[in-house]
């Protein structure tokens, strides 16, 4: 076993255990912290897939932004919601069944679909961060610029809705 494989297995284990902890813990804050660890683990997997740019984005967006957003939501919602009670009325078996139906179904359907397609075995080239940066200002100039318009629309919309709901009382 090479060093890389050992690191890979460690990352896998870390991701799996923190994902389980996210689902199983009853405390909101612990769930959030384990979610952050899961996201780090997934970004490690992206590095193994030779996609350093996506790994970086994963950390920036999920660890940096989304988890802060969740912290804010927890903070605004107040301490009352910190400890979630598991909803009653679901037996263990039905939980497992419902959790399995969708992934198993989609897995088999998609495996069938993809197996039913003949493709050429073309070697994929590795795309570096530099290529992506070039593409942004070259081929994908227009969508890149349009995103700024999209952000303007959503910021103004958010501010207006905040004002709108303030006038509710």
């Amino acid at each position: 076993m090479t060093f890389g494989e050992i690191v890979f297995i460690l990352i896998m284990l870390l991701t799996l255990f923190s994902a389980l902890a996210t689902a199983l813990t009853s405390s909101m804050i612990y769930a959030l912290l384990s979610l952050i660890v899961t996201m780090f683990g997934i970004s490690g997997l992206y590095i193994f897939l030779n996609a350093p740019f996506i790994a970086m984005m994963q950390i920036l967006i999920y660890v940096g932004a989304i988890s802060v957003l969740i912290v804010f939501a927890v903070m605004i919602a107040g301490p009352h919601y910190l400890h979630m009670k598991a909803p009653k009325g679901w037996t263990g078996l039905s939980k497992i069944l419902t959790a399995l139906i969708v992934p198993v179904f989609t897995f088999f359907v998609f495996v069938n679909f993809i197996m039913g397609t003949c493709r050429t075995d073309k070697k994929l080239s590795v795309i570096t961060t530099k290529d992506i940066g070039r593409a942004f200002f070259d081929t994908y100039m227009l969508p890149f610029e349009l995103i700024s318009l999209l952000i303007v629309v959503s910021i103004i919309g958010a501010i207006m809705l905040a004002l709108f709901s303030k006038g509710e009382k």
Partner: protein
Amino acid sequence: MLNLLLPEISMLLFAILFLFISVKKKKGSSYSFVRLISIVPLAISLFSIFSKGELFCGAYKIDLFSQLFKALLAYGFCLMAFMFEKTDEIDEEFLPEYFMFLAFSVLGLMMLVSSVELITIVIALEISSYSLYVIVPLRKGQSKVQLEAAVKYLFFGATATGTMLYGMSYIYGICESTFLTDIARILPTFLSQPYGILALVLTLSGFFFKLSLFPFHFWAPDIYEGASNITTTFIATIPKIAGTALLIRLTMSVPTVSAQIVNILIVLAALSMTFGNIVGLVQKDIKRLLAYSGIAHAGYLMMGILAFSKDGNTAAIYYITVYLLMNLACFYVIMLLSKRGENIELNDLVGLSRRAPLLALTLAVAAFSLAGIPPTGGFAGKLFLFTSAFKEGYLSIVIIGAANTVISIFYYLNLVRMSYSKEASRIEPLSLTFHQKAMCYIFVFLILYMGILPFGIFEVFRAAL
């Protein structure tokens, strides 16, 4: 380069103008001002209808097709601005923002009809959708209904975008390009295989959502009911034009199709028509009724697109134009009837012919057109759609469509029956201003014109393809 983008720039300036007005301390945006400057984008898009070109490494294509749809969008926007009435629907305070978001939405749709690259398509579509998500809850007298509508629209919209992106990721996986020109070259060889079918159908589903076609229709009735009348008018008409344009653009880029894709589209169209018409039979709220009628009409529209022929696509463009006019006419009557921005029930129509004969006439013409009865535009549009599907040999969908037309006549004519029935308990005459009368006459004229003399416009649309 800038002269190619004139319609978009005019729309952007429109939005920025209202952004500045909304920042002002004292807000007094007059309706006549909005009406006046809404003509500018229409005039500019008509002026630049023959411009041609490609921009941004081929991601943005300007041809007669896109310019025609831009003109249609600007036309719908202009008609909407003229329909706007000083009722209590939208808070006076938020009016400038409201117009700004409408303009941004139209801008997004204008960019959508010109984009020939998948990522640009998604982002243009999102600019338009985000603006709509924001304006749905803007209705005076906040209630749970409109907030529910807004949240539902947001979630359904996000799901539809996710589905579309998923499909596009498959297309990218197959073609290794996001440009429609490359996709048109490579995708057809995969279209008889499950992988390719999955990719194309999932990608189209984002536009099925905009058109509220059958499996993506869940949002329509609730959002129509919850949003204010003018917002509903916008959502029901203008995004559907751009949705049709993109469906045509995507299907045109695939020159030959497999029977499987056509079969999927036939099933969706048939389910959409049948479901929409049958549920429409029992509706009491007119906006909900129009929502189900919109679902059914999306099914009719698909008949033109699934023919995968030039005639079929032309028929679809023709039909969506008629659809724009007849829906605007219906909603105009609703808006004039609801004095405080409330929803109108079927029973509120009773005695309309006595209260305001012109409104009753407009509603009757629009309903006849929606049902597809001869002298109106709806008939001509349906005729073109049915013949195009028939020519390509899809007899089953033509029969289902014809049967559905008969079902739908019942509830459309019910609108007319209600407004012309005699047993009116209260007759308080509804006086219309000159502007309102003129608008009604314009709608009646346009719907009848498109029914009586359809071929000139049909040839114009055909030239665009």
